[in-house]
Structure formats: C-alpha cells, structure tokens
C-alpha cells in the first residue's frame, strides 16, 4: 500500500507525521519511507538513516550534430519549452529549459539530434532498522523536481507499506508525489491558513483519485473551521495532535512523536488501521 503524507500549507507537520508513522509500523510489517520533498528533504534529520547508495538522476537533453543538421528549424518549432533555437547557421540548446520530452530528436528529418544525460539530482537510499529509506535531492538551481521525485518513487517496494513524505504546497511536485497513492493523509492546523490550503490539497487528492483523511496538528488554540469543513465534506479526521510544547521541543531535538512519547506509537498504529480500512473501500471522499 502506498500512503502519501501531504498538507497544502507548509509547516503543518507532514514530516513529523510521516516519520512517526513509519517508526510506529517498523518491526510490525515491511515499511519504507520515501522522502519526496526533493528540494528540501528533512526526514533524514529525524530518522538518521544509514545510507548505502547514491544514484544520479538525469534528464536527457539534445545534442545536435552540426555536420548533419540542415538548420531547418523544425526542432525549435516543435519544442514546447523554447529550449532549442535555430538562428542563422547555429543551433543553440538551452539545457536548463529542456524537459527531456524527446520531441526535437523525434522530428529531426536529418537525424542530427542525439541525447545525452544531464544530471539534475541524486537519489540516496539505505535503512532505518528494518525500514527501507530513500530520499531525493534536487540540485541547487534546478527548476524541475519531477524527474527526481519519479526516481525516488521507483524504489517503492510493492510488498511493503510505502510512506511518501510529500513536499509542501499543491503544485507539480506534490501532484507527482501523490500520483498513484492508495491514500493521502493531509496534515493541517486549525487556523484559517491551514483550512485555506487544506481545501486546495483536498481538491488535488480528489483529482488524483486518492481517498484522503486529515490529521489536525497543533490542536487546541485556533478555531473549529477545519473540523467543520471536514464534516461538511465527509473527510474523516483521523488524528488530532495537541498543541504541546513538549512535542515542539522534542522535534527541535530531532525526535519524532514515536520516539519521544511511546504512547504515540499505539496511536499511529491505530491511525494506520483506519487508513487501511478507508483505502480498501477505495472510494474518493
């Protein structure tokens, strides 16, 4: 089963929930945690995995053979990203704009375009006890997280419970992470900002056909609007984590909920049972 942990609003506690859940299930069943926030992976800070492998992630970019090229300009017409330009008797490739779609080499009548890999990041993998772990790291200044996220997800073990720690927000990297999930856990906070971004995240999860449930973090202060919204939309609230200074202190020391308060391990296992039940029903909530 593939469970993604997303949020909408950043800083609500995705990584706290994802890592606590993973640690609570470790030892009970095969578990993997894949950190898909490739621009800013942070699960490793809490889990301290033993990394044993690092693989580059590449995107194919065009290489033009100047001898064979006829400068017809068709490659540049077909490129949706303006990554290849024909000017005078020169072909210019703007590698950082290239999305690796292959259209230019496909249409080239002179067969003058070949492809070479351009590295955009790495995927590092290892273990945390019996838990499988992997994270992606997008190279600084790269604009596209997609290829690295896909490379991380490729390591998902179909026999394990796979937990994906999603990036914040609701744009392309989040869509790429949630795609194909059996369930999407949305972590929010009981505030107007939390609610506002939660509603967008729910739309995305529904668009991706992932049933979803909510975890309310820092519950206590704040308002009822998130609970009301969930009730209205028939989205189950699966856990409430109280606003508790001890939790914040532990997190700042790099400790998950499961590690600092063992009673949470039981709570996360119960959360997982509920998720498994809801995912089995498979309905889009």
């Amino acid at each position: 089963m593939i469970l993604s942990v997303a949020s909408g609003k950043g800083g609500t506690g995705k990584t706290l929930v994802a890592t606590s859940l993973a640690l609570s299930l470790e030892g009970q069943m095969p578990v993997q945690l894949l950190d898909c926030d490739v621009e800013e992976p942070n699960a490793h800070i809490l889990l301290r995995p033993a990394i044993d492998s690092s693989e580059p992630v590449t995107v194919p970019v065009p290489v033009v053979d100047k001898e064979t090229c006829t400068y017809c300009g068709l490659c540049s017409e077909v490129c949706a990203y303006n990554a290849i330009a024909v000017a005078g008797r020169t072909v210019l490739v703007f590698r950082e704009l290239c999305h690796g779609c292959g259209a230019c080499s496909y249409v080239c009548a002179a067969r003058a375009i070949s492809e070479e890999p351009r590295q955009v990041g790495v995927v590092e993998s290892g273990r945390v006890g019996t838990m499988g772990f992997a994270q992606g790291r997008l190279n600084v200044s790269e604009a596209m997280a997609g290829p690295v996220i896909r490379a991380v997800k490729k390591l998902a073990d179909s026999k394990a419970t796979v937990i994906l720690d999603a990036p914040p927000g609701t744009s392309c990297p989040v869509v790429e992470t949630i795609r194909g999930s059996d369930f999407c856990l949305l972590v929010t906070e009981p505030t107007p900002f939390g609610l506002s971004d939660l509603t967008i995240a729910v739309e995305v999860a529904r668009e991706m056909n992932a049933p979803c449930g909510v975890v309310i973090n820092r519950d206590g202060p704040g308002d009822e609007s998130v609970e009301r919204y969930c009730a209205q939309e028939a989205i189950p609230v699966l856990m409430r984590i109280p606003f508790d200074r001890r939790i914040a202190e532990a997190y700042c020391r790099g400790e998950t909920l499961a590690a600092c308060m063992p009673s949470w391990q039981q709570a996360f296992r119960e959360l997982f049972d509920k998720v498994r039940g809801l995912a089995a029903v498979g309905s889009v909530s």
Partner: protein
Amino acid sequence: MKIAISATAPHLDGDLDPRFGRCQYLLVVDSESMEFEAIENPAMSAPGGAGIQAAQLVAQKGVEAVITGDCGPNAYQVLSAAGIPVFGGASGSVRDVVEAYRNGKLSSIAAASTGPGAGMRGGIGGSFIGGGRGGGMGGGRRR
C-alpha cells in the same frame, strides 16, 4: 534597413517596451520608408524561454538590428548567433527611437543588459503572473 523594436502598442507613436522577450508587440520597421508590421508577441506569456522565442521570431523576419530597453542573456545569445546587433537602453516613442537609430545616436550592447527572467517582474502592463522556469509545468516526461 529592417529593424525590430519592442513596443507597447501596434503602431509607431506608441512607446518602446523596455523588455525585449516579454514585450507586448514587436514592430518590424523599414527605417527608410517607415513602413512597418506589428506583431503581437507570442512570447509574452510563455512560461519560459520568452527571450529565445522572441529572438527567433525577429531573426526569421530577417531583421538587421533590434532596438529595445533591456535584453536578457538567452535572447542575447540567440540574436548574437543570428548576427543581429542589439541596441539597448532606448526609450520614448517608436518613431523617435527609429530616428535616433538613423542618426547614429544609439549604441549596440556587447552583452545582455539584464538577468534571466527580468521581464516577468513588474513592467508596463505585465500580465504574466506566477511561474518561473518550469513553474506550473509538468516535470518532463518519463523516458
């Protein structure tokens, strides 16, 4: 001489648009006869590579010079490859700018005058909001 000028309006009495890649119109003007063609700039709302697209468009029109305010690094690279000099730092109405060019009052620039993506921030009537390179677009296709 056929020259391309970044403009805010589709006629000679409108102002020059200080951005090249994301200008509203590209005017291709015959500097002798003042006959012109106004092209709505398709690159204005491109998610990325606007300068590249605009530069290729004017190169295909066979212009011998470009007059604008600021020209970014990608546009500059394409125009240089096409052998088209760029006269930057211009301002005023398109008509006045052509006059200044004819009188040799403008100088060509030897490098891009601004950083990448500058046309996306603010600007006159800039209507493209959000995005950046690759922003809002799918992260490429699986190979």
